[in-house]
């Protein structure tokens, strides 16, 4: 029996019988021929040929009705985002920037999707392109994924040859291009506006919002930024209907989702299940429990920047925005990092702060300087030279970073510091008390 979640409803209780749709168990599904044989591009064909049933705004309506929320971390309503695009203005190009940058530590789902079901992504891009009347899509893939970029380019070339992308797609009057953009190693490119800067061929400094990308995006033209996994849900919504999608998993955050489980579990990896699964189910049953039978100490539920949860805070908590917010964390990218009882939280936090210091783009002073200071302070504590006062200074630094920068990287750097210290304070205090500067 699945245990009930905290608000009493049984969420995603039938995950054991769940049938995979994003990465269904079909051999060689990554190849165009196999994908088409298994009903691939039917959704695109429907959208392009049934112009009454699937007029562009009706596609957007369906995505809105499905309740799909972005899978890149922020969890914003995808249909709503699409509807922000201004009316078509002849002479002004319109773009999609598809975010496959995926540099958040703990997140490794997009790479698997790109390798195993790239055509679902391409079909999703084309459906979104139709819904928003897009001229060109820039698919941004991080530079480290060179093998996967090559793989995607190979499959994209087939699509161009078969007339699924480019001029007059499938013989209709709809034309749209897809261009793969290769990154070169910068976490900040996953932020939507710096991704745009990077595509434009500049240093990836985030832009001030507003104007939002829907008004002024790539080259000042209307642009929608969506995650790879988000767009991959579009063909499923068209094929099976918005109601089917809305009925999967958590009520307010529905749909299939790729969970990335890593750290001290027996069977780490990417798993496809509905949203709203109990965290305990994910660790104990899906990932085969803790490695070596150790006790659970903490988890980070959705990638590096979301607040860490202590083991005693996850009872009845499910993987969706509402439940995780209540528990004091966030869904993020659903890349869950699991830590066992032997984990040194100070060392963990030291590595987190080092990551953000390295990845700060340097545009805003609070982030450029702040990330460096928090790394120095946490390092000092870890090296046995910290004082209790350093903990207060760290909190003060977090206050000075949060909400004071162009993008959310400073917030993402401050949250783990604040939450790890608050939730594991005794470990930090113990290190400070043992330090060479401790007061007698």
């Amino acid at each position, binding site marked *: 029996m699945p245990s009930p979640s905290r608000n009493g409803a049984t969420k995603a209780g039938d995950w054991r019988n769940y049938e*995979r749709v994003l*990465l269904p*168990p*079909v*051999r*060689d599904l*990554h*190849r165009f021929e196999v994908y088409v044989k298994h009903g691939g591009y039917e959704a695109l064909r429907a959208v392009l040929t049934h112009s009454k049933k699937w007029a562009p705004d009706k596609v957007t309506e369906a995505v809105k009705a499905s309740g799909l929320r972005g899978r890149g971390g922020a969890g914003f309503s995808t249909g709503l985002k699409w509807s922000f695009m201004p009316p078509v203005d002849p002479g002004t190009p319109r773009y999609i920037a598809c975010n496959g940058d995926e*540099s958040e*530590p*703990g*997140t*490794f789902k997009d*790479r*698997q999707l790109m*390798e195993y079901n790239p055509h679902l992504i391409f079909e999703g891009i084309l459906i979104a392109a139709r819904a928003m009347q897009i001229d060109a899509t820039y698919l941004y893939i*991080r*530079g*480290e*994924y*060179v*093998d996967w970029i*090559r*793989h995607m380019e190979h499959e994209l070339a087939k699509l161009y040859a078969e007339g699924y992308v480019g001029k007059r797609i499938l013989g209709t009057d709809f034309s749209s291009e897809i*261009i793969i*953009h*290769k*990154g*070169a*190693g*910068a*976490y900040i490119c996953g932020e939507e506006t710096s991704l745009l800067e990077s*595509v*434009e*061929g*500049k*240093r990836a400094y985030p832009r001030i919002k507003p104007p939002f990308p829907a008004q002024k995006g790539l080259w000042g033209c209307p642009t929608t930024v969506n995650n790879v996994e988000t767009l991959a849900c579009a063909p499923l919504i068209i094929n099976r209907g918005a109601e089917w999608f809305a009925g999967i998993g958590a009520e307010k955050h529905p749909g299939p989702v790729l969970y*990335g*489980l*890593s*750290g*001290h579990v027996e*069977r*780490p*990896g990417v*798993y*496809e299940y509905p949203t709203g699964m109990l965290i305990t189910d994910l660790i104990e049953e899906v990932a085969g429990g803790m490695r070596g039978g150790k006790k659970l100490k903490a988890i*980070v539920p959705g990638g*590096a920047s979301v607040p860490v949860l202590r083991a005693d805070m996850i009872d009845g908590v499910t993987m969706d925005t509402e439940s995780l917010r209540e528990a004091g964390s966030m869904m993020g990218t659903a*890349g869950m*990092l699991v830590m066992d009882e032997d984990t*040194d939280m100070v*060392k*963990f936090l*030291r*590595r987190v702060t*080092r*990551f953000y210091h*390295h990845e700060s*783009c340097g545009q805003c002073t609070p982030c450029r300087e702040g990330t460096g200071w928090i790394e120095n302070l946490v390092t000092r504590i870890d090296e046995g030279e910290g004082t209790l006062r350093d903990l207060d200074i760290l909190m003060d630094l977090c206050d000075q970073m949060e909400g004071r920068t162009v993008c959310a990287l400073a917030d993402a750097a401050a949250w783990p510091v604040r939450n790890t210290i608050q939730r594991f304070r005794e470990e930090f205090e113990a290190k400070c008390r043992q330090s060479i500067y401790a007061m007698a």
Partner: protein
Amino acid sequence: MSDFIKHPVVPLPDRLPEPVFSEKDLVFTDAEKEQIEEFRGQYPTPEGAVMKTLWLAQEKFGFLPPEVIRLVADTIEIPFSLAYGVATFYTQYYKAKKGSHVLDVCTCFSCQLCGGYDMLHYLEEKLGVREGETTEDGLFTIQGVECLGACGTAPMLQVTNGPYVHNLSREKLDALIDALKDGDMPPFVSVTLPQDEDALDGNRRSDAEATDTGRTPPIAETLE
């Protein structure tokens, strides 16, 4: 989890370095120019093509000293300062000469928890250099890098912006170093989804082994 590395202080040079490549070497072939033209066609402005062209230049010359960045800027007709800004912003563009094989060991959290630092220190010990340094024979550079997006198979590393090597162990590293010394790049490995192991009896891709893996070759043969 083992200890962190302490970075040695790097002294700044007191003057600009001499150009590494002579003027006659600093050219793109006709095929490369055609490729760059294609890149330019993919973007409404010439700046858009800068990242792809820098990649192309890095694959040809091995790294990006200022004169190569200038060549890129001149070829796609953008100011040198813009191209230089881009080349120095992104970590995968090498600003200095590296070894023939760059070992990027991931040490971000999942890898940290699963022994990424042990692997890094083992490599340092084995090759006799520290993180960020190159061996004397110019074969290997070791780097500790941020998340490479393969947390499920931690610890892992990437060889010269190319193939991933998953689930590292000391034995695996020994074998990798020996293979690289013989000039063999590690093959492309398709990571199996745990659910596929149950449903498909292993990997779903039948062509994974035939995939040729990406590599940044050493300085192009075309150079004299």
